[in-house]
């Protein structure tokens, strides 16, 4: 069982002219085993939502709650959230020079499980995860995200998702910048993850094309820090045809 519940979440960032509110009351529940898509124009606050769930220090929660299976996520440190079962695939994965992918993966796995993985199984698992995402076996020796192509960064994020196997995955524009082959490979990875019992996915995207491979249970339209509309997968088709214009004009009036 895993349920992520976000209630009336307000988040601001520090700016030169004082705090600026970006999330203006977001309410959303990902019930056991569900996949939710969040779609919205650039700058609408999608990454802010993802980062706030993960606990990035840049964002200040000024109101609302986030719970995972009833536990107060906002009271946890960043690493505690990850160990509680939250995973964020980042829109812009960060380079960590001199730290090899294999060392990074092993350290993360050890932290999440609370014990070091059994070496023989682990090597096999890592090789399989890399292979499944069409990443070269020598990938493990490279420094984390350093000199990776855009596609390699995203596929590496999904390899981590599969290896760390959290309860809830928040995927922030994992599809952007991918060609169609990479998009399929990444989608297959996400689908393998959510085929397991009770895994939740919050799929943040700007475009509808990834939804051809990953069918969401619900679609939320995100505009100006709030959910402006929601519905089933058919809402994505409507957005594909009509774009975000009708929501945007509504907010500027």
């Amino acid at each position, binding site marked *: 069982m895993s349920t992520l519940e976000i209630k009336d979440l307000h988040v601001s960032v520090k700016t030169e002219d004082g705090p600026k509110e970006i999330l203006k009351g977001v309410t959303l529940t990902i019930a056991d085993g569900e996949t939710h898509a969040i779609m919205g124009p650039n700058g609408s606050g999608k990454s802010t939502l993802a980062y706030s769930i993960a606990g990035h220090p840049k964002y200040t929660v000024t109101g609302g709650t986030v719970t995972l299976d009833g536990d107060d996520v906002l009271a946890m440190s960043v*690493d505690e959230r990850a160990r509680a079962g939250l995973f964020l695939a980042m829109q812009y994965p960060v380079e960590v020079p*001199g730290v090899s992918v294999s060392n990074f993966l092993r*350290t993360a796995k050890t932290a999440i499980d609370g014990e070091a993985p059994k070496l023989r199984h682990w090597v096999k698992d890592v090789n399989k995860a890399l292979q499944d995402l069409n990443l070269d076996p020598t990938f493990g020796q490279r420094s984390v995200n350093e000199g990776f192509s855009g596609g390699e960064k995203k596929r590496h994020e999904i390899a981590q998702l599969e290896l*760390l196997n959290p309860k809830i995955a928040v995927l922030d524009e994992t599809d952007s910048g991918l060609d169609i082959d990479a998009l399929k490979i990444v989608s297959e990875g996400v689908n393998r993850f959510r085929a397991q019992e009770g895994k939740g996915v919050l799929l943040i995207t700007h475009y509808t094309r990834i939804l051809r491979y990953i069918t969401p249970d619900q679609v939320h339209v995100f505009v100006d820090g709030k959910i402006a509309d929601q519905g089933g997968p058919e809402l994505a088709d409507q957005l594909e045809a009509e774009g975000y214009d009708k929501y945007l004009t509504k907010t500027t009036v």
Partner: protein
Amino acid sequence: MTVTDTARESVESMLETKRTESHLNPPPSYDLADHPAPTGREEIWRFTPLKRLRGILDGEASEAKLTWETSLPEGVTLTEISAAEAAEIGELAPNDRPSALAVANAGGALLLDVPADLELDEPVWLRLHGDSVDDLVWGHLVIRIGRFSKATVVLEHTGSARYSATTSVLVGDGANANVLTLQDWDDDAVHLGRDAILVGRDASVRHTAISFGGDLVRMHANVEYAGPGGQAELLGLYFADEGQHIEHRIFADHNEPRTKSNVIYKGALQGQGAHTVWIGNVLIRKVAEGIETYEENRNLVLTEGCHADSVPNLEIETGEIEGAGHASATARFDDEQLFYLQARGISEAESRRLVVHGFFNDLIRKVGVPELEEKLMATVEEELSKNVLRPAEDAS
């Protein structure tokens, strides 16, 4: 992790300057009159807290010695010679007061000789140990790496002393030398070291300075060339703690054509009053056509209250060069890196540890002394445990 980043510098704009004498380093001389006691305002002394040299610059005679424990592979000899013989052999004359005092006061030199054509498969290891900072010790060493030979020499400094030493590394034509000096002193030691390297025709040299311990450590690594085609790689790794002053001064003098120098120094700082200085002087003389040089210094500031000075200097007298560049950056922990690691469940302390190890890793691998790699990793770990790993934020 960049706070300031001087990108690879375009050289074109500097080509107009015509200088005959380098202003970067004073000319070498045995004569103490050429190296008067500094006031602290001189370009070469302005970063060094002179008081903490504890009288070394007064140049008192002293009988005190460091204890030497050596392991010399077959064919390698270590013998006592006179100062006059050291000069005759062709050592590089002192270029500052402490090195001139060392020659004047050491009462003779040691000559480490690796004969021509000998290829060593184990390092020459020289372990130097001092008993007390009350001892003022003068050191004078010549390392001669014969032509077409291949050798690794490790100089390890431990314990404590006020130690001023001048070392010349004379690398024969076509030879391949790897020289490493490790400053692993106790907290109160003072060490002024001048290593000067003469690179033979088509020879290649790697020199690595590693400084962890001591109250004040100031090391020169100078390189010049005896003929065309020589290559020098100057590496450095340092870790300054609370109150420590660690200074590295590099001078690559491209006095021959088609020579190369590649300089990479990396340092970390932690604790109140930790101070590091890196001066990277490169001179490309008029005759030095077709040379290549690149120098880089990176500092990672781990806590408040530290200060890193980093000054690259490129002086160019010829337009006919293959490439010249430098980079210098001093940065704090990158919040985004730490967030990324923590978002994978890794604790804050462990994340910091990974980032610092990552910072040093590529350099440690370059050192090329497998026996030392593990020790260096362990030393980085030990340094980290003093500070970065200490806060009890390691959850679970």
